[in-house]
């Protein structure tokens, strides 16, 4: 089983200057081992999205280092960062963010377009993923012809298309009702069981409780890390992985 580190943040700071400097992240140190499921909670404005953007290589820190998939993001140029983002990270957003003029299948195939994967390979791969998220009968639907839950499942399929080591989900169920929410979260579990590293931002305790641990953010700092020893999950794969990372200080808050 993979026991490497998927994401590592060392003393990360992100400061915005709007007249007065705003420390969106103020010294965060965090290790996320491969194949783990981490939830991030915290009040609005505590820096959750900022953290996701850094891990997702969309942004660079003002200070500190961010290592994703073994690469130090701060030393990469824009093009290299984009490549890393395209191949190593999969995004799931609260507002789904599907391309409105592309069908479900084309949306899922889109990330591979930018990796110069051939059209038929791309479509086969997209069809396979849509099947895995239970949408094989919706491949040619446009996003506006799909329900919220279906859209989020398309987005999840898209996030997985390049076989990322880590899936980032920023309040993925924020726009979903309870039933569709649990559908999507079940899928997260499924992909987690299959070995994908999951990092999920949420406001809601019951969503966070599906993870192995919850990182609580407050004012740009890690307030505490809550290990969920018994998350009510019985998967052997999970159990094995958890055993694998035990004692490695899976996630540690640096609160100074």
């Amino acid at each position: 089983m993979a026991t490497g580190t998927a994401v590592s943040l060392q003393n990360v700071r992100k400061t915005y200057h709007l007249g007065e400097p705003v420390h969106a992240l103020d010294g965060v140190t965090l290790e996320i081992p491969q194949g783990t499921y981490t939830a991030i909670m915290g009040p609005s404005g505590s820096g959750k999205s900022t953290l996701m953007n850094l891990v997702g290589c969309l942004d660079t820190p003002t200070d500190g280092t961010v290592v994703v998939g073994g690469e130090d993001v701060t030393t990469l140029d824009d093009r290299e960062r984009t490549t890393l983002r395209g191949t190593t990270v999969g995004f799931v957003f609260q507002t789904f963010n599907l391309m409105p003029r592309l069908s479900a299948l084309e949306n899922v195939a889109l990330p591979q377009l930018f990796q110069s994967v051939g059209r038929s390979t791309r479509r086969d791969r997209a069809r396979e993923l849509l099947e895995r998220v239970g949408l094989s009968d919706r491949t040619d639907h446009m996003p506006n012809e799909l329900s919220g839950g279906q859209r989020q499942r398309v987005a999840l399929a898209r996030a997985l298309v390049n076989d990322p080591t880590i899936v980032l989900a920023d309040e993925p169920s924020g726009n979903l009702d309870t039933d569709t929410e649990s559908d999507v979260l079940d899928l997260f579990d499924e992909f987690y069981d299959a070995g994908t590293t999951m990092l999920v931002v949420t406001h809601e305790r019951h969503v966070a409780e599906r993870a192995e641990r919850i990182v609580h953010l407050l004012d740009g700092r890690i307030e505490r890390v809550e290990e969920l020893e018994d998350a009510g999950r019985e998967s052997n794969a999970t159990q094995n992985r958890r055993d694998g990372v035990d004692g490695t200080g899976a996630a540690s808050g640096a609160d100074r």
Partner: protein
Amino acid sequence: MRPLEFGRLAWRAIRSHRLRSALTTLGIVIGIAAVIAFVTLGASLQAGLVGDISPDDQRNLYGWAADPDTEGGPLAGAQPVFSQDDLDAVSERDGVDAAYGYMPISTQALVYGGELSPQSDALVAAGPPYIRPDTLEEGRQFEMGEREAVINPAVAGQFEENVSVGDELTIALQGGQQTTVTVVGITETSEGLSPFEGFEPSPRVYVPTDPYYTEEVESATGGVGGENASENGSSAGNGTVVGEDALFLAIVVQAESADDADVDRARESALAYLESEDSDTSELLGDELAVTMQTSTELLQQLQDVLDLLQSFIVGIAAISLVVGSIGIANIMLVSVTERTREIGIMKAVGAQNRDVLGLFLTEAVVLGIIGAILGTALGLLVGYAGTWYIDIPLVYPYGYVALAIAVGILVGVLSGLYPAWRAARTDPIDALRYE
């Protein structure tokens, strides 16, 4: 990412705003259509005209007297100044093979077999060499001093029964007199035999200046001198006399060969005489008039120059239209980039490089440009085709310009798309994803 993929995505974006895209390309369409239509007409006109100059005509010099400031084609502002004595003298000059007068004579009608066909400008009096052997379909040239005529197919086919060689034709002149000619030849086509006649096909009866013109002058009982000849020699009803002599509206000088040197020698020689004290012409020219003497090719060149000038003008207008078109595309592309900020953010989040985004938007602008160019070319060719059909000249498609038009479409697309595409590529994905 491959160009084909760019094209596919660009095409989809364009199709999702059909009306907007169509209106955007309108400037390009109009600009390119204008150029293509005009160039098609120009090339066709040129081919039609140049095709009419036979090699045998290359040694003929066409001369007339007019105010040097007069603009226009052959015979514009021409005054009758050439006497028979001068013509005879010119034909004796060094380097001149023959010289004869040219005079359109106004008519009322042509009569054949009791059938009357009204014609006002069918009669042309000239010397026998005016009927070049290569222009004759059957029969022969008329002879000077004989009551003979060569007609063209437009006259021959005008009556119930076709006129053929050997038949007699009666001509009712403007003054009311009638004169009879024997048809000795029929030309191949009904197009003019010289630039004096213009190039459109029209019915013509060619007769020798003697007796027809000299006779008419005599019967006009000392007709008023100096009647203005109208452009293109359409009519010069009453003859003009100096002393007892008839004056011709124009002169045709035949050089010894079509060689440029021979043609120039004949021209210099003829002009030298006509402008010398010895000639009747020099007296009539006075201070206001000057003799122009040019070959068909040179006269066509003048027409070509006018055409070229007009063409530059149209190309200028088209260029403005293309600039407006480019601004239109640039504007729409900028709107499009703003509208799709979020989409750009999504694409970047899933791994699109800056150059992918740049290429995508640039492709879209180029596709718009190419669509405009193709529509413009099609429209232009259609208009050109309709134009050549209407004025009845052979159609020549300027293929080089079609390629050029497409190139211009691409160029316009690139130029107008560059800035919007650059803006799109530069979009910060985090901002873009937050964009509502």
